[in-house]
């Protein structure tokens, strides 16, 4: 046997992660703390599934979505969010809401707010919306469990948290308002959510979303259809725009923070769509068909939910609101979202409003 000799030369080694291919020239902090935290059996990682559920199926399954992509780990969140900047952003938003509420209470601003607005639209409509947000949270939490990569799983996690944040902010606002506005109460909100015919298409829609198994369908339906249309009309049109007319500064601000989240979530969903429709992806054509079918399905449901809200819009104290121009504007914005994602907005043009 030849005598081994060993090396006597100190080896210069890389001083950064070498197992992640950066999307741009340099590895970002987001990429470094996010990518390859999930094992990729049969790809990046050797071995199989070391433990499975009782039915023996794999804990992560390619058939968990109808979309196909050779490398789900190639996704990058345009906002480059990981936990620290995400929490910092939400802490700032929540602090701003809290201070605005405190200052409003100190200034006696609630006394100036239209009382019918508070009763009907804040303790009523906006509080009812918190149940819808809770439904969205319940849809996104299991979607993150099923995601086929960490970068997508984390984006879904953050959106689950976003929706619950909005739901809780509405409730917290009501609790603060009730403390200074005698007789104000949200006591009937849950009943309205469950029984008021105006909200039943909306409730049906969110129950259908929670029952949706495909973890890609959930963000695509929510961020390219449901929120751009329903949130824009039901919250943008009825809370954000109408609040100032009723001397309510807080509710529109809460809605604006949710809009900020909504823009961010739309952006990463567009990135996801572009990734699966890329010409280099073998299943791009099939992916397009799947996504288009989802869009048509959820567009109809979303339009039905908005139509159901007409009686609510008619009760705005400052004057009945016609939802049609709001929906037209929302659809125009939705067209831009779809086109920027590489989708054909004309696909939805024929659907009745």
């Amino acid at each position, binding site marked *: 046997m030849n005598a081994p000799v060993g090396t006597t030369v100190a080896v210069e080694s890389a001083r950064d992660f070498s197992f992640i291919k950066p999307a741009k020239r340099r590895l970002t902090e987001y990429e470094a703390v996010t990518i*390859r935290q999930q094992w990729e059996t049969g790809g990046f990682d050797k*071995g199989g599934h070391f433990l499975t559920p009782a039915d*023996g199926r794999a804990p992560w399954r390619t058939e968990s979505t109808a979309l196909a992509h050779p490398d789900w780990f190639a996704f990058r969140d345009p906002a480059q969010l990981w936990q*620290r900047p995400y*929490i910092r952003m939400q802490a700032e938003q929540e602090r701003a809401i809290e201070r605005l509420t405190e200052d409003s209470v100190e200034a006696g601003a609630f006394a100036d707010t239209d009382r019918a607005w508070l009763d009907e639209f804040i303790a009523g409509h906006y509080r009812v919306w918190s149940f819808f947000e809770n439904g969205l949270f319940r849809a996104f*939490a299991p979607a993150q469990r099923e995601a086929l990569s960490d970068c997508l799983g*984390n984006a879904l996690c953050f959106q689950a948290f976003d929706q619950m944040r909005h739901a809780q902010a509405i409730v917290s606002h009501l609790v603060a308002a009730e403390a200074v506005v005698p007789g104000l109460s949200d006591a009937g909100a849950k009943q309205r959510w469950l029984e008021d015919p105006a909200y039943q298409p909306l409730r049906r829609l969110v129950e259908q979303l929670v029952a949706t198994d495909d973890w890609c369908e959930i963000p695509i339906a929510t961020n390219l259809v449901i929120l751009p249309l329903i949130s824009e009309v039901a919250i943008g049109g009825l809370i954000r725009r109408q609040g100032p007319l009723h001397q309510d500064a807080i509710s529109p601000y809460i809605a604006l923070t949710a809009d900020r989240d909504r823009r961010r979530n739309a952006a990463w969903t567009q990135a996801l769509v572009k990734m699966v429709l890329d010409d280099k992806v073998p299943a791009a054509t099939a992916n397009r068909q799947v996504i288009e079918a989802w869009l048509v399905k959820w567009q109809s449901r979303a339009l039905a939910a908005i139509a159901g809200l007409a009686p609510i819009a008619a009760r705005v104290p400052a004057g009945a609101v016609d939802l049609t121009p709001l929906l037209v504007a929302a659809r125009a914005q939705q067209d831009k979202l779809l086109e920027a994602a590489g989708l054909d907005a004309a696909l939805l043009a024929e659907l009745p409003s």
Partner: protein
Amino acid sequence: MQHIIETHNRVKEFDWQFSYVDKPQRYPTKYKIPKRTKDPFRHLIRDYCSMEQEKDDRQYGAMSDVMARAGLPGKASQRWMEIMKLVLPVTGFGEYAAVKSTGQLVDTIDNAELRQGYMAQMIDEVRHTNQVAHLTRYFAKHAHDPEGFSNGIALRSKSIQCRAGRAALQGFFAGDPIEGAINLQAVVETAFTNPLFVAMTEIAAANGDQATPTVFLSIQSDESRHMANGYATLAAVVSEPDNLPMLQQDFDRAFWRQHNFFDPLLSAVYDYFQEERSSSYLEKWTEWVDHDWAGAYIRKLEPFGLKIPRWFDEAKERMFWVGHTAAMVVYAAWPMMFWRHDPLNARDFEWFEKKYPGWYNHFGKWWEDFAAMSDPSSGMIPLMAMENLPPLCRVCHMPGVFPRPDIATMRVRMINGKKHGFCSDACEHIFREEPQRYLGSPTLFEEFDGMELGDFIEQNGFLRADGKTLIGQPHLNAKRMWTLKDIRALHYEIKDPLHKLPVQEVL
């Protein structure tokens, strides 16, 4: 405070009974969960975000502003820093698996109050995953030897320890969501995060590693809430008498699976990689796991019918030896590892004999031989001195050498014409309960059976940046590092030991 209580009371009412669709049962559970329970922390997002932001600022600020500028990671004990190359990817996957577990719990547990706790934990676990990855990258940038930090994640699936870690930690989400919660919250977070995130930080700090305590203690500050989640979940489960037999069975299994991975690993890390020596892992285990977890936490649930896990006494008995055996395995297979292994010295020998009387008789000679084989000029690696490698357990993927090689409880069974090794009565029992859950992956030795060790190292990325020198080394001497050429000269072949071992029972 009244505002928080009132807000939380209303948040608890967020749920409703679906009437338009039947929600699919994505993660079937055999348990009945009452709709009303207690979330002792009253998780609300506003306070949560503010609290976590403050903790993040403290931790990341300390790392970037003080430690890096002072060059602290480069001054820490090299022996200690080497094993962090293993600890971090294992810990990171545990945190990631916990993210998945909480997603299942939100979907399955029809209880809005518990769901709020799971939601906060879900983001906590993303936080911890990010923190561990950040710490790993920080060490890649600042530690004495970056190899293994910079690429350990790419090597994890070719590592015995990381594969065993995945097998255990996947218990957080690959199964009944309540079983996952028992594994995650009631066993790992309550029994083992104290030894991992608290006790280990004492050793890290004593050995000059200030970054690990900064990160781990920040993680542990979230774990107390998770323990409360676990307690709330357990309390909810035991309040339904029908749940009890299933709960005890899952609890028994969860404890064994997690003990059988964590205790050998932590014990080897703790006892064999500390240079400035203090307490032993056995002492810490006795305090945190035996007294605090089994003696206090679990005993509080005994009036409800939950008993100390079935194999707890056996685990306790094995604790004296499992760390030494695990360390021997890690050191013996050093060319297949992605960190360097500092041989023990006379001071270490003295400490081991003092902390574990009788240690020398069983292990002392082995460590003397190891030191003699550490230079490439020896032409020997410990694997060559072993007549047979131990088979890897079909259930836990740990080597079948525990508690100690001469009294190993390993056994070989023939099932449907295929040989399976089991490391213990408990793992065999667990396999027999649900065999289909453990057949989804070959063991490392099955996967690489027949491969030349040199090929294993070269093809799987266990070489340093020069493409010649091994990442794993049996010493810390940068001037006498083993090369691929040294290994190829040994003509050592990885062989699945199951081929040679006789079958003791056909099932």
